């Protein structure tokens, strides 16, 4: 808070003018020129390419006359998560297999469930004795 005051004291200019962002000479600017989140994260993606394993696809359709004229351009980019691929997916698969096998017990038959209760009861009785 003291800094604006100090600036005033040493006689700093206090005029302020609003103008558009510098566009390197481009006359018309839109929000499309802004840096995107993907672009922002790109250095990280490249530095840690070993971890993220980015997949990049670039399709450019050139004008038949010259390669300097581009008709359409399509960029596709996907980051893989190494933890998801190497840790969570296998873990999930194991658990799913186990669950599927456990489903055999749950047949939906009421008589079956009564048998389970009887078995549990007998086992508990044997354990307590």
């Amino acid at each position, binding site marked *: 808070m003291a*800094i*604006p005051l100090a*600036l005033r004291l*040493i*006689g*700093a*200019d*206090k*005029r*302020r*003018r*609003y*103008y*558009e*962002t*510098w*566009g*390197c000479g481009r006359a018309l600017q839109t*929000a499309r*020129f*802004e*840096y995107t989140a993907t*672009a*922002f*994260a*790109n*250095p*990280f993606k*490249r*530095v840690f390419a070993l971890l993220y394993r980015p997949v990049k696809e670039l399709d450019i359709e050139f004008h038949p006359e010259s390669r300097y004229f581009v008709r359409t351009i399509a960029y596709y980019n996907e980051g893989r998560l190494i933890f998801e691929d190497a840790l969570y997916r296998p873990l999930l698969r194991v658990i799913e297999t186990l669950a599927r096998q456990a489903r055999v017990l749950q047949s939906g038959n009421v008589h079956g469930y009564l048998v389970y209760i009887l078995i549990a009861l007998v086992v508990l009785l044997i354990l307590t004795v």
Partner: protein
Amino acid sequence: MLAEIAIEILQMLLVMFGSPLLVGVIRKAKARLQGRRGAGVFQPCADLRKLLAKEVVVSENTSWIFRFTPYLLATTMLLSALIIPVLTVRAPLGFMGNIIALMYLFLLGTFFLALAGLDAGSAFGGMGSSREVAIAALAEPTVLIAIFGIALRAGTTSLDGIITRFAAEPLLMLNAGHLLAFFALFIVALAENGRLPVDNPATHLELTMIHEAMILEYSGRLLALVEWAAGMKLFLFLTLLSNLFFPWGVALTNTPLPLFVAFLALAVKLLLFAGAIALAETSVAKLRLFRVPELLAGSFTVALLAVVTAFFIK
């Protein structure tokens, strides 16, 4: 009490007015080494004065962050000047923060500057912020580990404590780990301050700049504050390096004579550092952006070795 306040103010004034001078000295030394005559050492001061007298042009697309950041930068640097033992280890406010708090105070400034770079919506600002954040994130582990390297040997993370300990037992510094930690921190200091192997402070070429790209939209007194804060950051980093690793001359008591000696010692040490930086910047070319991680990984390894030796070599 009054004397203590006077000392804090003295330290702050030293940092405030010393920083443009330091930048000027580095530029002058660099110019001489490159066979140019170069501007006088007071040129950065003159630049700041000129900028302060100019009108500010603010982009229509910015938010309060853009206008707030220069003040935040200057404030964090002045706050650090109160904490760092610039002249004396008995800085009355030294208890407020240790070396870890200090590094994160610097990082707060970096964070806000990156936000401000994005704020105006210019592609250059975004590019600068993106690179700065990537480099800061890579430099961060090195800073902490190198600091632990020296803190382990000194047995404390307090800045005053480390310097007092090393001044009392200079043999502690005669150690491979100490040297390794110094080199690691020096490389990181170059990276954090946008000096040459990582970023060129003299360039305004769009595709290579990092720090300059972030502050491209600033003008007038706001630019003056940002530039001044960047100068103070360099001054503080070099002060920290020289006082932590070469603690000779730092005043252990707050009496006039040791303080004067400390002032002279600091001036000599900073001049040596300025010379070293000028020499390094003349002989080294800027690294390609995607080679920077290798440099920082190297300094990280050195820092790690510094910590490991702290356990093996007592």
